[in-house]
């Protein structure tokens, strides 16, 4: 089991989700975060021009069994990239156990 954490552009979210679907990854959780990275965007407010590196991004947390990891990563990279600085990252973390709260089941079958 692995936990895949992907930080993507909000604007690419719909495409990433459908790519995940094609890769048969149907279950995950996501939330919005602020990313600090290479990308900068210019803003103006009351005559003050400033550029911020703090950019709204979406954070996907997906636990999959080991055999799904590569397909998932591939799907995200293909669908989430624009080629511009700021497309985001994917991190793979070990996950030792998983439970389905409804039934108490554990292991791979708990999250599929």
């Amino acid at each position, binding site marked *: 089991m692995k936990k895949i954490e992907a930080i993507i552009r*909000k*604007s690419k979210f719909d495409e990433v989700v459908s790519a995940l679907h094609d890769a048969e990854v149907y279950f995950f959780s996501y939330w919005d975060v602020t990313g600090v990275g290479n990308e900068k*965007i*210019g*803003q*103006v407010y009351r005559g003050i021009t400033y550029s911020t590196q703090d950019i709204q991004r979406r954070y996907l947390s997906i636990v999959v069994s080991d055999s799904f990891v590569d397909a998932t990563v591939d799907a995200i990279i293909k669908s989430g990239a624009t080629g511009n600085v700021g497309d985001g990252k994917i991190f793979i973390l070990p996950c030792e156990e998983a439970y389905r709260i409804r039934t108490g089941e554990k292991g791979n079958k708990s999250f599929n």
Partner: protein
Amino acid sequence: MELLTTNNVWMMLCAALVFFMHLGFSFLEIGLTRQKNTINILFKNFFIITMGLITYCLIGFNLMYPGDFNIIGNGILGFAGPGLDAAVAADLAYNEGYTYWTDFLFQGMFAATAGTIISGAVAERIKINSFMLIVLLYVTIVYPIVGSWQWGTGFLSTLTDDVGFYDFAGSTLVHSVGGWGALVIIYLLGARKGKFDTNGKPLAIPGSNIPLSAAGVLILWLGWFGFNGGSVLSADPANTSLVLVTTCLAAAAGGLGAAIFSGLLYKNLDITMFMNGVLGGLVGITAGADQMGPTEAIAIGAVGGIVVVLGVALLDKCKLDDPVGAIPVHLFAGIWGTVAVGLFGASAGFDQFMVQLASTGIVGAFCVISTLIIALIVKSIMGLRVSEDEEIKGLDLSEHGTGAYGDFSMR
């Protein structure tokens, strides 16, 4: 003099109430669209009201009330010259219902309204500069010309020998005029990304701030006290108070009609339909607010509400995307209200009905054609629609450099 003073107080306050409708429109539109396009909507609405007043002062007022149709005769086109006329203003015998200044102010507030109707329909995807140019031309030229045909005593006001067009406060002259413009432009613009799926099935794009929308509707209703009440053009107690009663009953009936009808249709108590229904009732009664009694007002309002519900569905069917329901409310209910003058109330009758229909058609054709010309020219010069990227980011960031809700966190 005493009477002029009273009349003028009423008319000034009605002008103030119509002015206040611009807040109503802004709130309505903001609330029914996404948070990322909020500043853009506000900017457009601030532009309309400020630009609208200035150009109406410079050109519009004297194009709408030319006195003489000195450019194209037979009540088609006239222009009394640029700017306001302090000499005319000085003469208090100008009109016993209001002073020259009040006349300008009341009419100027109306003018801007027509532009605002467009603003709502095209939200979330139009280029701000293109929008400003289109609406400038529409409010400064198209609206006053159409207005002159009826309120400037042009050809519509005496369409046949016996019967003239009747449009008390502008179901057609204000609301449909705005609505036709909106319809043409959303057709040219195309729907927002995400409004229809790849099979053309309509998707929901829920509004970001329903309380503000609801406030907008109540403010608009309040504004209609001035919009219709002021269209009596004096404080005549019998007429003004009748008009307020028919206006309020139609609004109430429109809301209930839409809520009940959409409740039955979709098995859901939808506040946005309730809200749009109130507006449909208001727009519906506007053409004949002084011709109806309470019962007719309730009937016209209720049908207006139902028309709005059906209109929303119809647009979805036609793959036209009107985020705030401006077209069902202002165009469809506006047409309904206009023809209803031929069906109900003091001047109902076959001839009147035909005149109402014909006038609706004439105004519609003129608005559609002139909007097409304006919009296509603007499109060819600077384009109409923002890029897909800008649309996704939201117009606030891409056109205005900042967001509307600083430290709130968004989904």
